[in-house]
């Protein structure tokens, strides 16, 4: 979260990925830093014991959300 703030402070559009275990903590930390919410994508826990193929699948599944988090949505 501090990395996010530091990078955006330098004008770099930022977002982060975390496992679903992090949802609550991310929310608390965002608010603690003055944000209502921060661009983030959460992938299903667990992470550490996944195979390479499973990790790749997680990335595939997350791609659309990641792109949405770093580009502006034109309101329809």
């Amino acid at each position, binding site marked *: 979260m501090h990395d996010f703030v530091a990078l955006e*402070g330098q004008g770099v559009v930022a977002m982060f990925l975390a496992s679903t275990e992090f949802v609550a903590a991310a929310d608390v930390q965002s608010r*603690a830093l*003055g944000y209502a919410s921060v661009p983030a994508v959460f992938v299903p826990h667990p992470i550490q014991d996944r195979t390479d193929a499973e990790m790749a699948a997680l990335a595939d599944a997350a791609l659309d959300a990641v792109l949405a988090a770093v580009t502006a949505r034109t309101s329809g």
Partner: protein
Amino acid sequence: MPDLPSDGVVAVVKRECPTCRLVEPVLGELSGVAVYSQDDPGFPAVGDVRDDTALEVSVALHIDTVPTLIRFARGVEVGRTEGWLRPAWEDLTGVPGLGPDLPEYRPGCGSLTNDPEFADELLIRTRGASLASRTIELTALEDEAEALVDRGWSDGLPVVAPTRPRVLRMLDGTTRAPDEVVALVPPNLAPATVEKVAVNAVLAGCRPEYLPVVLAAVEAACTDAFNAHGLLATTWGAGPAIVVNGPVAREIGMNSGGNALGQGNRANATIGRALQLVIRNVGGGRPGEVDRATLGHPGKLGFCFAEDEAGSPWEPLAQSRGVPAGRSAVTVFAAEGPRGLADQISRTAPSLARSLAAGLRSVAHPKLPLGFDATLVVCPEHARVFADAGWSRAELEAALAAALLLDPAEIERGAGGIEEGVPVGRLRGPVSKFRPGGLMIVHAGGGAGMFSTVIGGWVGGPTGSTPVTQEVGP
């Protein structure tokens, strides 16, 4: 109101007070007294002790001293006594023979509501409801100084956190109501209340006594005539400048003397800054957005000074512009950075006037007439030359105008090998550099140095900006 008895006696005490400890047994003797403790709900050791460590009841009852004893009848206070005085206590409670072992009288101590540490909280509780601006919580993880800049409220320099006590104290600087709308601020034409101006005055670092001057400057700058929007949006780098006249300048400690246009004086520095922060934060005027200046200048952080009236050979600028003598006023005008004119030889008024005119020729561009307005700050050593010659402001203006009649042959396009200039054949004869009323003369500066200063402006008149004078009210 917390549950005070509608009929009965109330006492307010604090353990820290020796007199309160002295009367503890008396409070124990009395039945039916509701005792509010400011610092320790375990004190005194009597029947009906209530915790007022939050000081809510003390504030509501306007407690100044502890112990205070109050009698209520039918929901209304009918009497109170402060400190310990046996006859007063017996009278109030209707109980004779109180505290037989006690001395007749002991004074009380200060109520915790008067504690300096509580002052800010008290201010918020008693007057906070009068504030209308949205509150924003800076979180514990945010550095206060960084947080204010991160939210975009700064002009690049640190700003002062506009807490509620600070804004309430700033509002004490004026008699105007906080919700009074002062102006619609360009470019977004957002309404600025006295309170909003006060918030930005706190950001800027103003003292409360500067607020009336800031309010007058905001009013002047937001007029159609001044055209703050146009001034902001042009690629020309001028911004608003403020010159202050009248008693208020001395009352708030402004600088009209040495380095008056420079740094070091809090009022000069923060009043100009407050105006720019109002335009930025309330009006939405920011560089890279509506503010399109190619270069700008350092005075866009804030540009404000007082005229030296005492040493001036002429009437105050505001007076020359219609403000009755002796009244305080601001004149807001478009300004780029100041440029010095070093004439250390002229000892006669005609020579010095021509010399200053030579410096004025290059406002905007030496070959462009009737384009821009300007302000000439005449320093004391130069002013003395005019004073010795007995020249009024009007006579100086006339001499400058005569010296600023430009020869078409010099200013036409191509003249001097310079492509810029007036289209060939456009001019029938000599033309004035400045439009009528387009040059203002102010007196300021330190006593040493024969260096007057030209402050170029922007396009004058209806298509540009016109200086505006506004009286300063309380």
